[in-house]
């Protein structure tokens, strides 16, 4: 059995390891156009922000460890075409390579606006670790930067730029940070912190051009010109699917590859996983694309297991997520009020602000929990959280609650841990659920 994997990100490496786990005799080849595989690109902003001392810390394993596992990684090799009839891929400098099973894990690209000057030097797309090393040196010379749109990576980069003392301006067509995902009341503490830190914020405005002689010197926006030595691209993630599309593999309405729960595409023996694929939402069944690294890794494992002859299903997603935004953690699952309203899903909402530890214990922080329940079934369908700590664990827990169909009434009467150093007497999830129950 020869399994070829295109892409060395979380999904590709997850697929390779899982395939070897099922069939150690399988020849497993990973092609990546980059110099490295299996590092945490999500960690790059934290190295820029000096919270993490070195890019080397972001690697999950060494190249030698992949060799020891029997995974044959071909670095800096571009797969130029897939021929699904002949079961071959065309690889730069290697020619045509046959496969028995193919896993496409080509990931994502930034949705780069088609505007003047977009190819100037000084425009940074945070993604590749080797280029991040070079950009990190450049950041030492930068006095002012513009963040172009305010998605999740942009939010982390704003914090990094502020930590480095770089004057930062955010230009975002939406009305608040991460407005495609987060409710305004949840993100408000982050926005307020940015304001206090001197970040210029231009909500409701767009970048119309990048200017400079070879290198960026200013950014044109709908609100005027901003001098800047650096522009950080914070636009949305779009699937990197030109290869799959050219091979005739079906794409969905998100632009992601259509797959089933086993990761199978529309073509026999071709699997897909990660940000290049789309997955149905557990609440609405609407397909989603561009989830987190943990989703990509888990999907990769499913595709790898099945490609090697095993049998594992991936599940529709409830998308627990969380991230650090300056001094705050934000997170949630499925819907917030904004996204539920956009889709047209009815909900009953309960919100509370509590504390993360006993009120007298050092390090206690506020935490706001918002829960959304279906008005008829009373099941949890969404949540958003902002707090000083404990957001990730609550998001993970609420993701399982939504998946299991647990009701808001059960959450309102949940038992919780009380221990002064790690948890308050009243669990904010229970209080928010009680607030929601009062509204039925």
């Amino acid at each position: 059995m020869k399994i070829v994997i295109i892409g060395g990100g979380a999904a590709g490496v997850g697929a390779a390891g899982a395939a070897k786990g099922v069939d150690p005799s399988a020849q497993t080849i990973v092609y990546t156009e980059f110099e490295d595989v299996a590092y945490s690109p999500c960690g790059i902003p934290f190295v820029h922000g000096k919270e993490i001392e070195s890019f080397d810390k972001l690697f999950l394993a060494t190249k030698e460890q992949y060799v020891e596992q029997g995974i044959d990684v071909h670095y800096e090799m571009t797969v130029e075409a897939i021929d699904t009839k002949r079961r071959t891929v065309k690889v730069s400098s290697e020619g045509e390579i046959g496969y028995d099973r193919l896993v496409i894990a080509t990931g994502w690209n930034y949705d780069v606006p088609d505007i003047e000057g977009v190819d100037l030097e000084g425009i940074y797309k945070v993604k590749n670790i080797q280029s991040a090393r070079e950009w990190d040196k450049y950041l030492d010379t930068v006095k002012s930067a513009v963040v172009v749109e305010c998605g999740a990576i942009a939010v982390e980069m704003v914090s990094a730029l502020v930590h480095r003392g770089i004057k930062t301006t955010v230009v975002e067509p939406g009305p608040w940070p991460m407005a495609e995902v987060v409710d305004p009341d949840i993100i408000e503490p982050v926005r307020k912190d940015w304001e206090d830190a001197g970040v210029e914020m231009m909500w409701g405005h767009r970048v119309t051009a990048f200017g400079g002689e070879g290198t960026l010197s200013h950014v044109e926006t709908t609100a005027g010109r901003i001098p800047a030595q650096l522009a950080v691209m914070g636009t949305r993630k779009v699937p990197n699917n030109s290869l799959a599309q050219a091979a005739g593999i079906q794409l969905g309405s998100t632009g992601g590859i259509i797959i089933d729960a086993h990761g199978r595409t529309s073509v026999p023996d071709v699997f897909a996983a990660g940000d290049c694929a789309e997955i149905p939402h557990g609440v609405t069944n609407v397909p989603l694309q561009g989830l987190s690294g943990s989703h990509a890794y888990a999907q990769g494992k499913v595709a790898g297991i099945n490609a090697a002859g095993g049998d594992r299903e991936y599940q529709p997603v409830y998308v627990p997520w969380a991230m650090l935004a300056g001094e705050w953690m934000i997170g949630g699952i499925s819907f917030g009020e904004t996204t539920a309203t956009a889709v047209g899903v009815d909900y009953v909402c309960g919100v509370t602000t509590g504390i993360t530890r006993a009120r007298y214990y050092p390090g206690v922080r506020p935490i706001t929990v918002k829960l959304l329940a279906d008005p008829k079934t009373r099941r949890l369908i969404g949540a958003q959280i902002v707090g000083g700590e404990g957001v990730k664990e609550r998001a993970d827990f609420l993701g399982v609650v939504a998946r299991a169909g647990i009701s808001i009434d059960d959450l309102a009467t949940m038992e919780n841990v009380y221990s002064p150093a790690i948890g308050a007497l009243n669990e904010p999830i229970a209080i928010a659920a009680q607030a929601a129950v009062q509204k039925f």
Partner: protein
Amino acid sequence: MSFPRWLRSNSEHYLLCDAQNRMARQMGFNSPTGPHGLKDRFWRQIFVPIYRFLPWGLRRVVIQALPGSHRRPWPKRNPISSVP
């Protein structure tokens, strides 16, 4: 860009703009900017009100009709009441 992707991309964007506007008004935050040009006006003033007027059943028919992973075999999950 394929028609389903064009439809999804535009409908998602403008439904989100409308929802952001509603949330901003309700919670007292910045509202998104108003419509610019004919395309903006069509999606905001014609498509969004029609979408919001349609019952879930009809919306679901349209969503289900679009090509996507949701039409392939997946484990069944607990649907919400408004998504029959």
